[in-house]
C-alpha cells in the first residue's frame, strides 16, 4: 500500500465508524419515547403557557420599566425556547456514554479497530443532530407565535443553533466521561441547564436602552454580571437578531464568545474521552 491509499483507507474507515456511532445515537433517540415527548412538550409549555401568560405584563411591566420593544413576549422568548430545546437533548445525549459503560456496549466499541477519536466525533455529531432536530421542531411554532421569518433567516438561524447543540453535547460528553452514575449526571445536567437558560436574557430582557450604570440600578450587579458572562446569552441574542432583527449585545463580542464556546468544551471533552 502506498502512503496515499493508506491515508484514504484510514479516512474511509474513520468516516464509516463515525457514521456508525452517529447513526446509533440517532436511532436510540428515535426509540426513546420519553425524549420525544419532552421534545414536543417543552416548547409548547414555554411558548403557549409561559408566553401567553406573561404577554400582558411584558409591555407594561409589573414594576416601573422604561423598556419597550417592538414585539410581543411570545416573539421575544421564542428564540430562547429554541435554545432550551437544544440544550436539553444535547446534554442528555451524552447519557448514552454512561449507559454504554454500565451495560457493556462500550466494550464492543472500544475493543474494535475503530479509533477512539472516531467514536468521539460520532457521539458529538450524533448528539448535535438530535439536538438540532429538536431545536428545529420549535420553529414549527413560528406561525403560532406570529414571528415572520424568511427562509434566508432560517438558514442564518442554523449557525447559532449548531453552536449551542455542539457545545452542550460536548459539555455532556465531558461530564459523562468523568461520571459513573445516571443520577449524578442527571442532577448535574439540570443544575447546569436551568441557570444557564435563566441567566441568558432569555425570559426577561436586560434593558438594551440602558447604559451599564443604569442597568446596574434596575438589576442587582451579580445578575448583570452573570448574564454578560453566560455564553448562552449571546447564542440567544444571535438568534433574536436573525429571527426578529433585534439584538441586545455587540455582534463581534457575541460571535467571539460563541466560537470559544464551541471550541473549549469540544477540546475538553475530547481529552476526557480519550483517557
Amino acid at each position, binding site marked *: 500500500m502506498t502512503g496515499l491509499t493508506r491515508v484514504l483507507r484510514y479516512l474511509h474507515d474513520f468516516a*464509516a465508524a463515525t457514521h*456508525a456511532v452517529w447513526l446509533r445515537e440517532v*436511532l*436510540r433517540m428515535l426509540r426513546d419515547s420519553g425524549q420525544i415527548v419532552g421534545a414536543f412538550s417543552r416548547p409548547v409549555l414555554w411558548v403557549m403557557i409561559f408566553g401567553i401568560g406573561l404577554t400582558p405584563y411584558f409591555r407594561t411591566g409589573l414594576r416601573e420599566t422604561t423598556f419597550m420593544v417592538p414585539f410581543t413576549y411570545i416573539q421575544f422568548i421564542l428564540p430562547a425556547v429554541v435554545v432550551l430545546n437544544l440544550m436539553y437533548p444535547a446534554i442528555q445525549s451524552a447519557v448514552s456514554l454512561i449507559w454504554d459503560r454500565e*451495560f457493556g456496549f462500550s*466494550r*464492543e466499541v472500544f*475493543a474494535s*479497530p475503530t479509533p477512539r477519536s472516531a467514536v468521539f466525533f460520532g457521539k458529538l455529531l450524533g448528539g448535535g443532530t438530535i439536538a438540532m432536530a429538536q431545536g428545529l421542531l420549535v420553529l414549527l411554532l413560528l406561525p403560532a407565535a406570529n414571528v415572520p421569518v424568511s427562509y434566508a433567516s432560517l438558514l442564518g438561524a442554523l449557525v447559532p443553533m449548531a453552536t449551542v447543540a455542539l457545545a452542550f453535547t460536548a459539555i455532556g460528553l465531558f461530564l459523562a466521561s468523568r461520571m459513573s452514575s445516571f443520577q449524578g449526571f442527571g442532577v448535574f445536567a439540570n443544575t447546569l441547564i436551568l441557570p444557564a437558560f435563566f441567566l441568558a436574557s432569555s425570559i426577561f430582557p436586560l434593558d438594551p436602552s440602558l447604559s451599564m450604570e443604569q442597568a446596574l440600578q434596575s438589576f442587582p450587579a451579580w445578575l448583570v454580571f452573570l448574564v454578560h458572562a453566560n455564553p448562552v446569552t449571546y447564542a440567544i441574542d444571535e438568534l433574536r437578531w436573525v429571527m426578529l432583527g433585534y439584538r441586545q449585545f455587540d455582534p463581534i463580542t457575541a460571535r467571539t464568545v460563541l466560537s470559544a464556546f464551541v471550541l473549549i468544551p469540544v477540546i475538553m471533552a475530547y481529552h476526557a474521552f480519550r483517557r
Partner: protein
Amino acid sequence: MTDSAVIEVSDLRHSYSSVEALRGVSFSVPRGSFFALLGPNGAGKTTLVHALCTLLRPSAGHVAVAGLDVRRAPRDVRRTLGLVFQEPSLDDRLTVFENLVFHARIYQVPRRQRRERAWAVLELVELQEWANAPAGNLSRGMKRRLEIGRAMLHEPSLVVLDEPTTGLDVQSRRRIWEYLERLQRDYGVTLLLTTHQISEAEGADLVAIIDRGELQALDCPSTLRQRIGRKLINLQIRDESFRQSLSERFTGRCTQRDTVLQIEADDPDELLRELVADEERWTMVDSLEIVDPSLEDVFINLTGRELRDRTADGMR
C-alpha cells in the same frame, strides 16, 4: 515463533497496583485448534484475555496474535480477533440486525458485504426470525448466540470467548457448544475459551490450567488425565463405621463426599481383590465404579485445591 501458531505468549506478566495477576505465562495456540484456558475465578484468565485483545497493556512480556505484536499493531490485532465477552455487550435498543450492521461498520467490513454477512451469521446462530426484534427482547442464551455470531461477522481467524456460558441454562449451554464446534469444524476458526468449568474444557483440543497467575499444565485433556497415572475407585457405602475404617486405612489417598468414598489406586485390581476378600464387609458396599481421573482431579493434583470451592467463594 512458528507459523502454525495463532497466539504466542511469552513470559507475560501483569500487576494491578500490588496484586500480581500474571506471573510469567508462556504458551502458544496452534492454528485451527480449540484451546481452553481453565482456572478458578481470579486465576488471571480475564487479564490474559484482555492482554490478548489489546484492552490491557501488560507490564512485561510478549504477546503476538496472528504474528502481530499486540503492543505495536493493536488495531491490526483487533481486526483478526472475534470477541465474546463475559458480560453482555449488545445495544438493547437497537434491533438484532442493527447490532450486527453496527459491528460490521466499526470492523470495517466493506459496505456491499455488510447485510449479506449479517444474514449469514444470523443463520449460523439460528436467529433469522429475530432480525428485526430489539436486542433487549432476546433471552440471555439468545443474546449469547447473537454475540457469537457477531464475533464471526468480520471473518476473524481467531475467536476469543471469556466464560461464554456463564449464567446460562443447560440447554442454551449445549446449543452454544454446538455452534462453537461448528465454527471450528466448518470455518477453520481457532477458538480460545476461558472457563472455570471442567466439563467445558474436556472437549477442547488443548487445555491450559492456570492458577494464581501461573500456567500449571498445558496438554490435551486425555494426556493430562493420564498424567495422574492412577485410577479412581468410587465406593458408595452407607455404613459410617465401615467408611471410617476404610478412610483411615487409605489416609492421604482417599476423599469423601457424602456416602461416597473415592480411593486413588495405582493398581485397582489388587485393591479390589483385597476388598472382596473380606466377604462380610463387602456386602456393605452399595455401589462401586472405577473411573479415570477427571480434569478436576488433575487440577487438584496440580494445585492442591478444588476448582469448585474457590468459585463458590465468589473470589474474583
